[in-house]
């Protein structure tokens, strides 16, 4: 159903893919629209046309089993936060969805939009999903393709015409997780830095697996392998982990932005790691 040349409301994934292919790269998928509608403020032109996917029912599903959570790309932050509330292993993702932006934006902004907006360095869901080793599923003319999220982040600038991010697959485990963010106000604005953790421990409290992801510090969120290695094989000690984070923080090159200079983002990162560990400890208590 087309409203006009520059906005097509897709009824299904196949419909959206067909129109994206037909418009040969001149059309862009549109979900919650919260980033696209601010293009004029960024002095960016709007795309020639958009294919709205937010009304496709299949992309609004959340299916949570014992093994994995499968999240449709058009699930909003608000719905995701509600669906994940109380699921300890996915706490980092639930927190990221519940704390990002502000209540009205969370009602519109989608998971898929957060992952596809390459210029949005402060996206909360990206580091949260990275620490779960999440994967994304794309549909396009060639069928369904599954990619690790980190790989998708490096490819998203130049996806083949007609590719549509449809689902995010989050493996579940015995891990516990936490998400710490630092906005300049208490809430409502972009975080200066983000740390997401997912930790598994044995019955003696020794860390057997650690995943740490950092967002908003650099242009693209990424894992922190050296800190993960340092955490494994030891008890979860907040002070010790904070010292390691300070020692290893120089591995990051902070991005300068209007809300904070790059050096500040790196400087606060160890504190956010400590806060995330404290949040994990609080879950245990």
């Amino acid at each position: 159903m087309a409203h006009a040349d520059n906005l097509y409301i897709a009824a299904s994934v196949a419909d959206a893919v067909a129109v994206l292919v037909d418009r040969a790269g001149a059309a862009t998928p549109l979900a919650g629209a919260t980033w696209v509608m601010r293009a004029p403020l960024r002095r960016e032109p709007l795309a020639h046309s958009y294919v709205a996917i937010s009304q496709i029912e299949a992309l609004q599903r959340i299916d949570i089993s014992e093994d994995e959570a499968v999240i449709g790309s058009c699930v909003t932050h608000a719905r995701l936060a509600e669906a994940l509330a109380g699921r300890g292993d996915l706490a980092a993702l639930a927190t990221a969805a519940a704390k990002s932006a502000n209540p009205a934006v969370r009602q519109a902004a989608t998971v898929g939009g957060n992952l596809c907006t390459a210029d949005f360095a402060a996206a909360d869901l990206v580091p949260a999903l990275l620490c779960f080793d999440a994967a994304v599923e794309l549909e396009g003319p060639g069928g369904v393709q599954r990619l690790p999220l980190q790989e998708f982040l490096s490819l998203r600038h130049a996806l083949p015409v007609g590719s549509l991010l449809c689902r995010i697959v989050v493996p579940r485990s015995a891990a516990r997780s936490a998400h710490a963010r630092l906005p300049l106000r208490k809430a409502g604005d972009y975080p200066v830095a983000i740390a997401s953790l997912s930790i598994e421990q044995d019955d003696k409290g020794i860390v057997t697996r650690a995943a740490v992801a950092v967002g908003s510090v650099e242009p693209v969120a990424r894992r922190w392998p050296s800190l993960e290695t340092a955490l494994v094989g030891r008890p979860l000690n907040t002070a010790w982990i904070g010292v390691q984070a300070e020692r290893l923080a120089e591995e990051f090159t902070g991005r300068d932005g209007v809300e904070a200079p790059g050096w500040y983002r790196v400087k606060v990162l160890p504190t956010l790691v400590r806060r995330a560990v404290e949040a994990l400890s609080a879950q245990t208590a």
Partner: protein
Amino acid sequence: MPITLIVNGEERATQAAPMTPLLDVLREEFFLTGAKAVCREGFCGACTVHADGIARMSCLMPVGLAEGCAITTVEAIAADGVLSPLQQALEDHDVVQCGMCFPGMVMSLTKFLEQNAHPSRDEMKTALAGNICRCTGYERVIDAVLALTNAPQAAE
């Protein structure tokens, strides 16, 4: 092709381009100026309306995505000219200052109180994270709403 939406219970149509912000159609075409155009980037909340019962920033909503939606603006909150209990509480406590943020505050709080009739002070602050008051009148807003929600009839 016109875009049809239900605004304050009335079917309305617009010929605006579908990527036009809903806010601009409400203000410039339908002359519903309660929603304010301030930041236009989803930070200030002055343009908050209800779309199918959900509080949304109308500056970030393309009108093309509002096709068929029920839109409620602040103009419809005082049914038949009678202030809602929330509006009355805000007036009774002399909370309104410059008025720029207030329509958005009312719309956010109206929806929030439907979901949480007895919020704590912290819950109210969290709910208002997307509504910026340039007069910094936050504490008085919260005082007024808590007076409303803590009133004996509010518990009934």
